[in-house]
């Protein structure tokens, strides 16, 4: 691995300077010649993707973000299909999910892919954040890239939560009750209560959040994240001897493997649906990505559902402010690393505790 000379502290390199240092010419004229202007690839601007990147970008840990994006595409595709048959009216939501499972051709498989894709997106995003933290890729000049990523993480949580409330089973009804309770405790949360308007139901508005508002937010964050990665370059000190088109090709290949894996998981372990929800009781636990919140709720009551996310997302947002070094400057303060490890351990411990903890009533605590 070759190392490059460090930039001047404080200087924010542009795409050109990043590509140019390490002695690599940013655009290959031979590659341009290979894509004629009048071809379809030329018209689609494929040449713009043929820029230099470090070869480490083609290693799997660097592809976690890209694989998350592939998972999001799978979620959007299956979500659009599911939404053609889903009825967000409270009395019909459950039946329409059963309809999707039993009557729609491949409906159960598509729904299961949606479920597994959400899980995979969560896992790849989690490990992507962990790897970026570990490599200290959030430091100057990539703070905003990191914050957009944290925004993506929060949005994915929001999408998973709103998705859970839609299916109309016992878990969904309890999640909805928690959403209302949480909204009532939050300033400005009235929009997520049934009393906000009588013209439509809360479930219908959560459906709207799930299929339009949050995906739009997600799209904006993803575009911003990608644009900043293009501007600041991939965080690596290797010489830029690989091409981004190769990276896209490898990522598409791994993305196809991911889709095949999702297809197999959905066929072998289809997503389950609980019994129709009964309001006012709590007999289920949330899906495992939310168990850390459940663990805090078990300890401090309903306020835990606000405290836990504030602590985790607050820490993630604060990371570039706590460690204000340059990406090629001095090492990270040990206490930031220690704090990160502490948050990670608490997060994992919360999930493990949530798995084994007895089911508890939180509403009204």
């Amino acid at each position, binding site marked *: 691995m070759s190392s490059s000379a460090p930039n001047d502290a404080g200087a924010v390199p542009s795409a050109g300077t990043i590509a140019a240092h390490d002695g690599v010419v940013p655009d290959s004229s031979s590659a341009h010649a290979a894509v004629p202007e009048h071809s379809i690839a030329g018209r689609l601007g494929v040449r713009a993707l043929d820029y230099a990147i470090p070869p480490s970008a083609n290693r799997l840990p660097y592809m976690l973000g890209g694989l998350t994006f592939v998972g999001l595409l799978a979620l959007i595709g299956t979500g659009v299909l599911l939404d053609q048959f889903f009825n967000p009216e409270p009395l019909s939501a459950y039946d329409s999910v059963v309809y999707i499972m039993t009557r729609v051709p491949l409906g159960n498989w598509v729904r299961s892919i949606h479920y597994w894709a959400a899980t995979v997106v969560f896992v790849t995003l989690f490990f992507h954040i962990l790897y970026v933290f570990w490599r200290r890729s959030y430091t100057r000049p990539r703070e905003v890239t990191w914050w957009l990523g944290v925004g993506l993480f929060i949005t994915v949580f929001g999408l998973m939560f709103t998705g859970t409330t839609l299916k109309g089973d016992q878990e969904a009804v309890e999640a909805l009750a928690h959403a209302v309770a949480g909204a009532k405790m939050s300033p400005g949360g009235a929009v997520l209560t049934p009393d906000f308007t009588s013209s439509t139901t809360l479930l219908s508005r959560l459906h709207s959040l799930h299929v339009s508002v949050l995906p739009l937010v997600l799209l904006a964050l993803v575009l911003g994240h990608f644009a900043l990665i293009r501007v600041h370059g991939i965080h690596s000190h290797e010489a830029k001897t690989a091409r981004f088109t*190769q990276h896209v090709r490898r990522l598409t*290949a*791994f993305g196809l493997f991911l889709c095949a894996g999702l297809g197999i998981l959905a066929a072998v372990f289809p997503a*389950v649906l609980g019994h129709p929800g009964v309001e006012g009781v709590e007999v289920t*636990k949330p899906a495992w990505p939310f168990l850390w919140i459940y663990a805090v709720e078990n300890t401090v009551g309903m306020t835990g559902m606000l405290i836990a996310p504030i602590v985790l997302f607050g820490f993630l947002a604060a990371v570039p402010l706590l460690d204000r070094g340059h990406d090629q400057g001095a090492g990270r303060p040990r206490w930031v690393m220690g704090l990160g490890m502490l948050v990670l351990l608490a997060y994992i411990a919360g999930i493990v505790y949530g798995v084994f903890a007895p089911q508890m009533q939180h509403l009204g605590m």
Partner: protein
Amino acid sequence: MSAPGRFTQLRWRLGVALTLAAIGLAATPLFAHEKGVLTLNTKQAAPGDTLVARGSKLAKGAALRIEIRGALKTFPFGSVHTDAAGKFEMRLPIPADAKPGAYRVVAIASDGDVSAQENLVLRPVQAAAVPSMTRMPDMTTMHVMESRATAAPADIRVVTSSRAWTVIIGLIVFALVGGVLLLRGATSGSARTA
């Protein structure tokens, strides 16, 4: 502009025009029917109630099948003939075992197309017994409710046809083969670059 350039532009325009025409033709059948009007004496009822459906602006002297369609079950109510003015009236006793939910009352012509339709919401018979989601029920109610609420998955029988399995396996194999081919191409591309 050169002759080849004009030809390419013409080809693009022709392609776009043909695509739009195909979309237009495909969409036409979706809007071809449903000219009549169907009204109900109420749009919200409960299982066991009797609805009165009235049709108008329909074909004169036509035979129509009346159905209440839900997501999981359809309730047929037999046939009705429209009068000389294209109208009909029919009483629809909703079965007591119908599940609450969103339904659609439809009048179906002899060729199977929907001539008129109206939405219907079936409310639970004892709606008042269901507690508000934002309020905790008293302990007595909770005891009754808990006996119904369960975290166990529902036993929903999903039948996957052999054709569906073929499609599923085909798509998985397609993704795997596509991935391998792309990876090979990317590897040979890297080797060339190196």
